[in-house]
């Protein structure tokens, strides 16, 4: 009998622990493997450590113990010059948006493409395309600071997706959105996933992962636990 080919991991976390000073244990002994092209959800109560886990993966934080590898690079040992290159491959939609309020919506989205020196025509085209997908085309020239929270959330999602990264990390991407807009955002993520992007979504919103066949991971007090209504799947038992 032939053994199925082992899928390559884009994220490999082995027994990672993160403690914030003085002694707040945000994550404890986390082990996780995410394969290329996978889409998965990370759930858990507020303060369970979802954001910290995303921060470890995108290199905003470093683990105190254990190993975090992204695209084969050890985040603890990554050299200064490699960090920007890696970050260009990761699109992060932040819970607090991290938008520049005095820049237009288009300029905010374009930033993620400008840092990788994409040409202006490609950037303009991509920005318009994303704004249309997220029903924000009329806000193209509006200042980000003048938008509602829901609109700002969509802009941060558009910015995360714009540069066609290998990995998208979304922190509560639908927290401020209504049902219809949530659907638009999830459609966008699914399109990205179909084109090969790995997506990790940290969310409280059961509605977006209950009907999904994707893996769901649950964090509880900094530890990965089995969700109540479904098994924690691993890359090896994925459909």
């Amino acid at each position, binding site marked *: 009998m032939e053994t199925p080919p082992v899928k390559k991991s884009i994220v490999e976390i082995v027994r990672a622990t993160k403690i914030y000073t003085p002694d707040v244990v945000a994550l404890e002994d986390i082990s996780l493997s995410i394969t290329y092209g996978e889409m998965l959800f990370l759930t858990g109560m507020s303060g369970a450590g979802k954001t910290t886990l995303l921060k470890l993966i995108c290199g905003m934080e470093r683990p105190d113990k254990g190993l975090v590898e992204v695209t084969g690079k050890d985040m603890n040992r990554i050299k200064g010059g490699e960090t920007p290159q890696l970050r*260009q491959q990761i699109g992060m939609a932040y819970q607090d948006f991290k938008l520049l309020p005095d820049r237009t919506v288009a300029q905010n989205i374009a930033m993620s493409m400008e840092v990788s020196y994409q040409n202006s025509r490609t950037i303009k085209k991509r920005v318009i395309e994303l704004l249309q997908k997220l029903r924000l085309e009329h806000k193209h020239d509006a200042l980000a600071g003048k938008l509602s929270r829901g609109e700002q959330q969509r802009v941060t999602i558009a910015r995360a997706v714009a540069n066609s990264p290998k990995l998208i990390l979304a922190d509560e991407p639908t927290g401020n959105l209504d049902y219809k807009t949530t659907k638009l955002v999830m459609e966008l993520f699914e399109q990205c996933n179909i084109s090969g992007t790995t997506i990790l979504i940290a969310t409280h919103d059961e509605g977006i992962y209950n009907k999904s066949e994707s893996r769901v991971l649950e964090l509880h007090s900094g530890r990965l636990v089995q969700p109540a209504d479904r098994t924690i799947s691993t890359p090896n038992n994925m459909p």
Partner: protein
Amino acid sequence: MKFFSTILLQTNRNLQKTWPTQFMTLLTVSLSVLIFSFFFLIYTNMIKAGEKLGDDLRLTIYLEEEPVLEMQSQLVRKITNFNPVEEIRFTSRDDAYSRLTTQLGDNVDVLDDLDSSFLPPSIEVYPKKSLSSLAQIKRFSEYLSTLPGAIKVQYGQEWIERFNYFTKLLRIIVLLSGALLILTTTFMVAYTIRLAVVARQAELEILRLLGATNGYIRTPFLIEGFLQGLLGSTLGLLALFFLFRWIDMHFSGPGLLQLVDFAFFSPTIIAIIIAASITLCTGGSFSSLRKFMRI
């Protein structure tokens, strides 16, 4: 090409945001360049005038008696042994008298009651151009006064000494204004960039998270420094040029300017001043980035 267009776009955005501070820095740089180059211009012209005076430098040794031919060759040997000279010219009592009558022109009758041999014979020594410093001239003059038969040595001591002290004073002012230029341009630009970095901390943080390289973040600031240096020095030099033209128009004619033959900087000096300003401003920007950005 993409790199440059992206960086220029970023620089343009930065300049639009921080133009009031940038404008003040530009004025400071221009003013510093103007002050420095003003004194430097006077100094270079004084040096030029000094060289011109050096060309005309002549030491006259008045003698008790007219030297005989053998004595003349002995004197020449003694003078040239101490210092190489361009020319040595002997003037007899008669030659001196006839020169004076020529100089007096129509007023020659004032000499009517005087004996034609009342003027002393002399030797005129034209030193080589290598004899440039006042100390060297003084030493040479002291030596000449010890020659046999010498009564007095003259070379316009007072004028040369005054000119020499004035040039020294100018040199100090140029050095001080040069130091002022270095301090103001470097610190002002460094301070402006520091303010820009602090004001845009949030933006820089987001750029880093999005994967901006150090080059992407730093280069626009360095370009700002470069532009401050280029525009600041150009404006300063332009202001000096117009000031020079104004002085030239209103003060030309017989006087100091005519004597000195005042000229503006050569294109090479202009290029050097602009290049130095650019280097200082870009350096100030770079040091500020190293201090406050930690990238």
